[in-house]
Each structure stands twice: as structure tokens, then as C-alpha cells.
């Protein structure tokens, strides 16, 4: 057990690392939707598939739902991102802050870029441009560029935070871009991992008839969605080990190797479940609740395994005695009970909101 994350860590560090992973999982649900959704919209926009005058295609149902739900997904992704952003500051304060500071303007640019993306998404669903395919295409591609920029910046920030040796030079040269050959493959891995999760969420939405999508249109979208999910999940599975393990020196600590391998095995099981869950959809029939549930469990396991391995790799680089001592000191600070109490109240309130609106929707239909 002492080689498995988080049992291989001192208790306070393990506590915050688990909180980080759990809250990051929540963020990833929405982040995947936004990252992959923006790419789907961008490609559709490039191919002139958006707008009421565009020729209906297999992807029409998907793009209709994406246009409708992307603004919410983006704000939910930002909101969900606050908690992991909080815990990353506790776990890796010096490294995270230093990487922020070194990237300076470039890093800070993600904020206005996110605001621009948010407003563009609203413009994309505005009635006024519903019939303007070219304009919709431009907006969709701009959104994709914005979201990819944010994704690239996060990957860059993460890798820079792990490479202490590069810090003085990066500072002295005032380099706006941190150049690391690992950035592009890592970004590619995140995109490949986000695509099947987004496809899964879209499949649930198609099944629920979200955004008033007709059943026939939803059925048409099933097969291409399944193909996209299957291809991307296999690409993600192949890329996972070199990308996650790649941040460690060639001869990494044996304990880390074991723990990373366990995380990867969990992710592997998740990939298998997803593949099995998606296969029936290749026939083009509407996806049932059971295969979708199986795929959802697979996606959860995949991300859990990946995030566990990612933290093991990071902590084996950053986790020094001084860092653990800081976690121990911070871990004595009160407030968890209040958080827990309000988390229960908050979840209850959200549950009531969902129930009330669902009831009203059912009554409406």
C-alpha cells in the first residue's frame, strides 16, 4: 500500500493531494467539454457547417447542442477550476507561483482570452447571426484558438514549474515562451483525452433531447461521435505513459515508477470500459443507458488513473521535506468542518434547483 498514491505520502500532503485530484476531476468534466467542444465547433465552422443556412450533416445535432451549452460549460469550467487552483497553491506554492511569474504577461493573457471566448460563444448563439455561416465559422474558429491558447499556457506553466533548472535563464532572458519539446505532445494528449469525455457528455445530451434536437438528428450523430471517441481514447491511451512518465528523469525513483504504473493500470481499465461502451454505437443505433453508464465509469477511471499518475510524477520532483513540512503546518488550520457543512447545504440546494427545473421541463413537454 505504501507504494500507491496517496498512501505513499505523508498524511497532510496526501489529504491535499486527494482533494486536488477530486476537485480537478470535477473541473476536467467541464474542461473536456469546452476544450473538445471548441475544437468540434472550430472544425465545423471551418467546413461551413454552422448556421441555419448550412447543409444539415451528421454533426448538426452536436453543433446545435454545443452552441447552446458551451457558454454554460465555460463558466462551469472556470468555477470548477477554482478549487483545484486553490489546492495547487497549497501543494506546490513556490513552483506554481514561480512559473506564473516567469511567464508574466503571457500567462496573464489567459484571463482576457477567456473573457473574449465567453462573449464569442454568446455571439455564436445570437439569433442575429443565425443565418450567417461565414461569420459563425469565424467566431467558432476564434473560440477554438482562444481555448487552445489557454490549454497550451497551462501545459507550459505545468512543465515550467517542474523544471527548476530553467528558472534563472527563463527570468534573465525575459522569454515570453517557455520552450520545451514536451509541450506539444502533452497538449495533444490532453486534447485526445478530452475528446472522448466530451463525446460522452454529448451522447448523454443527445439521449436527453437537449437543445430541442430531434430524435432523428440525434441518431445521425451517434456513429460519428462514437468513432471520434474511440479513435481519440486509443490515441490518449497510447500517449499516456510517455507523456506522464516523460517528466521524470530516465532513471526515475522505483517507488514512483510503481505508483505511476498503478495509476496507468487504472486508466487502462477506464480505456477498456470506454471502448466496450462505445462499440454498440458504431451500428448507428441510439445509445442505451447501460453502455453510456459503462462509458461514464470508464471515463471516470481513466481520468482518475491519469491524475493519480500525474501527481505522483510531480511530487517525486517537487516533494521535498520542506514542502511536506509546509503541508503539515497548513494542515493544522481550521475550517474544514465549515466547508463540509456548506458543501452539504450547497449540494442540497443544487439538487433542489435541478429537481425544480426538471419538473417544470417535464410539465412543459
Amino acid at each position, binding site marked *: 500500500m505504501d507504494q500507491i498514491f496517496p498512501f505513499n505520502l505523508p498524511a497532510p500532503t496526501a489529504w491535499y493531494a486527494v482533494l486536488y485530484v477530486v476537485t480537478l476531476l470535477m473541473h476536467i468534466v467541464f474542461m473536456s467539454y469546452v476544450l473538445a467542444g471548441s475544437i468540434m465547433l472550430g472544425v465545423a465552422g471551418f467546413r461551413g457547417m454552422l448556421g441555419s443556412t448550412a447543409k444539415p450533416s451528421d454533426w448538426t445535432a452536436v453543433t446545435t447542442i454545443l452552441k447552446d451549452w458551451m457558454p454554460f460549460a465555460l463558466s462551469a469550467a472556470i468555477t470548477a477550476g477554482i*478549487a483545484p487552483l486553490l*489546492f495547487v497553491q497549497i501543494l506546490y506554492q513556490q513552483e506554481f*507561483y514561480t512559473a*506564473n511569474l516567469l511567464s508574466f504577461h503571457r500567462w496573464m493573457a489567459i*484571463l482576457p482570452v477567456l473573457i473574449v471566448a465567453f462573449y464569442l460563444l454568446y455571439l455564436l448563439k445570437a439569433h442575429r447571426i443565425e443565418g450567417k455561416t461565414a461569420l459563425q465559422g469565424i467566431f467558432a474558429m476564434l473560440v477554438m484558438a482562444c481555448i487552445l491558447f489557454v490549454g497550451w499556457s497551462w501545459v507550459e506553466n505545468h512543465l515550467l514549474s517542474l523544471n527548476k533548472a530553467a528558472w534563472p535563464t527563463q527570468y534573465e532572458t525575459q522569454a515570453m515562451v517557455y520552450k520545451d519539446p514536451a509541450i506539444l505532445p502533452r497538449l495533444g494528449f490532453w486534447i485526445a483525452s478530452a475528446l472522448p469525455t466530451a463525446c460522452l457528455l454529448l451522447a448523454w445530451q443527445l439521449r436527453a433531447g437537449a437543445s430541442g434536437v430531434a430524435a432523428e438528428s440525434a441518431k445521425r450523430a451517434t456513429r460519428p461521435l462514437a468513432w471520434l471517441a474511440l479513435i481519440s481514447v486509443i490515441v490518449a491511451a497510447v500517449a499516456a505513459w510517455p507523456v506522464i512518465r516523460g517528466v521524470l528523469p530516465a532513471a526515475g525513483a522505483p517507488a514512483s515508477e510503481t505508483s505511476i504504473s498503478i495509476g496507468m493500470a487504472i486508466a487502462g481499465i477506464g480505456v477498456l470500459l470506454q471502448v466496450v461502451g462505445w462499440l454498440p454505437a458504431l451500428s448507428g443505433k441510439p445509445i442505451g443507458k447501460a453502455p453510456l453508464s459503462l462509458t461514464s465509469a470508464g471515463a471516470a477511471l481513466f481520468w482518475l488513473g491519469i491524475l493519480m499518475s500525474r501527481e505522483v510524477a510531480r511530487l517525486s520532483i517537487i516533494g521535498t521535506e520542506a514542502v511536506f513540512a509546509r503541508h503539515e503546518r497548513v494542515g493544522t488550520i481550521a*475550517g474544514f468542518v465549515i*466547508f463540509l457543512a456548506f458543501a452539504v447545504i450547497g449540494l442540497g440546494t443544487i439538487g433542489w*434547483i435541478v429537481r425544480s427545473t426538471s419538473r417544470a421541463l417535464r410539465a412543459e413537454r
Partner: protein
Amino acid sequence: MTDPVASGLISYPINDFGPAMKGMVIGGLGIFHVFLAQFAIGGGMLMAYFQWLAMTGKEPAARTVLDSYFKYLVLVSFVTGAVTGVAMWFTSIQISPGTIGKMVDVFHWVWATEWIFFWVEVVAGYAFYRYSKILSDRTRLALLLVYSVAGWGSLFWINGILSWQFTPGEWVKSGNIWQGFFNATFWPSLFYRTIACMVIAGLVAAVIVNTMPALSREDRTRLINRTARFMLPIVLMPLFGLWFLAAMPEDSRAWVMGGSIAMTLFMNIAVGASVLIGGYIVVGLWRQKLYINGATATLLLALAFGASAGGEFVREGVRKPYTIRSVLYSNSIAPEQVAHLREIGCTTGDPFPLRDAASMPNAQLQLGALTFRNQCAVCHTVSGVNGLTHLMGAWTQDQQRMNVAKLQWTKGFMPPFAGTPQELEGLVQFIQWETAKRPATWAESREDRVIAQIKAWLDEAGTGPATQPRPPEQASATNIPTGGR
């Protein structure tokens, strides 16, 4: 609390903002964020009030406003508010990583609790945005009340953290976060901000109803007068303002009461603008039931922005010389580190090289530039806004040495100098060189007598801040002739 940053000074790469003072960056963003966030919070409350007016038949036109783009505005502002909120975190890291790190360490559970409130706010806001047309009036009202409570709750939590920075109170000794959270300025600040939220939302509504062609002039007048009732708590603002003033530490109060003309001026801008807005609301809109057009409403909103800006400036400024009172100075150095840093130096162990070292004629200037970066750069530039060449350039060299050595007594809102006499002399030489427009050659100043004099002045000043009693004059600290430039 005895541990703050006691384990040592973490060196972060300090960025140069050019001629802009870092405080301008965080202040500018802070004011924008506060204004947006307060509008989102007050907007939720106002929508709940309008929903109640509409469903009880007291004001049928309220539904038109509620279902129009006012709700989009609230929605957009809370998303922008959320992004700028994250931006506040990121900007704080850029300006003072030590301070934000300490805040996160101490209040991470409070921030996590605030996060729960954000979630409820987002879900309630979107549910209303997407489904309000198919919901019953009771559910609509309940949803808006949930949104309002969640929005106000987020204010409640962040207000505790921000007011703790200024008046951490007993927390400094006990480390009990609830003693820090419910501090002396918590309640007046919370009530004051709550009213500000309501007034900002009311003024935005006054602008909005003037842009809606579906409303008649009579409808608009009635709605604006209803909104005036919503904004009436503004009459309590002076009370909470005075309470806040009374709860301030004495030295901080002295700054706003004339000790610092900038503080006094900004406070008066905030007070003056609030009085004008309050007077217009109470006398014009509520008592006389006047109508205001879009232009006047926009002007009042601009005044409210000015009041918020002035208030936020004062709130940030009166904390000096601290970012967290008694715990961290503005330059992220803890009071208990000062004595140690006077022994080992504030530049020792800084792993980040000087960017323009090659342009400096000697090593002493490089040491001075590093000292400037570590101790001064968070609030000062070299020659831009609040530039040291402007502030110190006219002083003689000995005056510069003494005034920096006795910094906390030179200006009460400055922290004590936390470096070696050699670093201080390097800083003085660096400022002299910068004032002389960076000549190509510059002789080093390595006289032992100069260092001895600086050491004597440093000892005389002590390591405590001006907010604490002045140490007794030391008889040995006599003037040593330095032969300064």
C-alpha cells in the same frame, strides 16, 4: 501565530512593470472586479425584489425588466466577475506571491467554502436564465433568492479575508482563524459593501429601464421610484463608514484623517460621491418621485464607480506598511525576519540574476539594483510612478543613507530596511547613478566609515515598524563623518 514565513525568505522572480507602479495594476483590476462583482450580487437581490413586485401585482412592469436583458447583464457580469476574481488571484501572485500565499495558507477552507457558494450562484443563475419562462412565480422567486443569498455569501467570505489583512486582531497571537475572520472591521465592511451592491444594481437598473422601448414613461418612472426604495439603505452608509473608521488601527486612521493627503483625498472622493448619489436617491427619487433619464442614471453610476474606486484605494492604502498587518510588510518580508536579514542580507540566496547587470558599471550598483528589486520594487519604480529617483533624488547622499536606514521613521507607512549596511549603500549608489542618468563609469563607495555610520543608523532605528513604540535613542549612534558626495 508565530510561524509566518519564519522558515526563511522564499525568493520569487520579481517582474518589472516598467514605469507603472504594481499597486496601479492590482488596484485597477481590483476596482473593476469589485464593481462588477458587487453589481452581480446586488443585481440578484434586485431581481428577487422585482420578481416579488411582479408576482404580487404591485408592479406589473417589473416582469418586463426582469425578463429582458437585465438578467443577461447580471449573468454576464457574474461570469466576468468570476473571471476577474481568478484574475485577482493571478495578479496578486504577480505583485506579491508571499502575501497571497500566506492568505491561501491561512484561509484555504474559507476560500473552499466560498467556492461552494459560487457553484450555487452559477447553477441558480443559469437555471433562471434558461428556464425562467417555464417556471412558476414561486419557483422563480425561490431561485432568485437562492442566487442572491449565494452571491451575498461569497461577499461574506471574501470580506472576512480582506478585512483580516487589515485588522487580523487576536489571530496574530492565537492563530485561530475565526478570530481573524470575524475581526474588528469585518461587520462594518460587510454592511457597507452590501449597501454598495444594492446601490450599484439599482443605478444599473435605472439605466436599463431607460433603454427599453416596451416601457412607457409612466412605467419607467414607477420602476425607478421602486428601485429608489431598494437603494434606500444608502442612508445607513455614513454609519457603517464611521464604524469602519472607528475600528481602524489608530495609525491607519491618522493617514485618512489628514496624515496622508492622498489617502484623505481619495476618502473624500468616495464620501463626496456617495453623498451626491445618496442625496439624489433620497430627495429626488424617493421623496419627490422624480424620473431620471438614461444620461443622468449613467452619470450617477459613474459617480458610484468613483466612490468604489476611492474606497478601494483607501482600503488598500491604509494597510501600509503591511499587506497583512503585523505579519507581512508590503515587500513580503515578515517583521521577525528583519533582524536576520540585516545580518545575512536580503539579496543572499536570490537565485534570479539581474536582467540588466551588464549595463551597470560596477558590482556595487548591481547589488543596489538587487536590493531595490527585493525590497522596494513592489511599491516603487526606479524613475516611473512613485519612482525613487523622484522621491530621493534631491536628497544629499548622507540624507539618503540615513533616511533609508531609518526608513520606518522617515515615513511611518514604510517598513524598516531589511538588509545589510552594504546593501543599503549599494541601493543609495544605485539611486544616485540612476538619478545621474546612468553614466558609463561610476566609482564604488567602499569606505568603512560609511558602512559603520549606516550600521549605527540601522541600529538606532531598530527593526520594528513605526506602528510600534520607537526604541530608545542609542547614545553610541553618533554621527560619523562619511565624506559623502
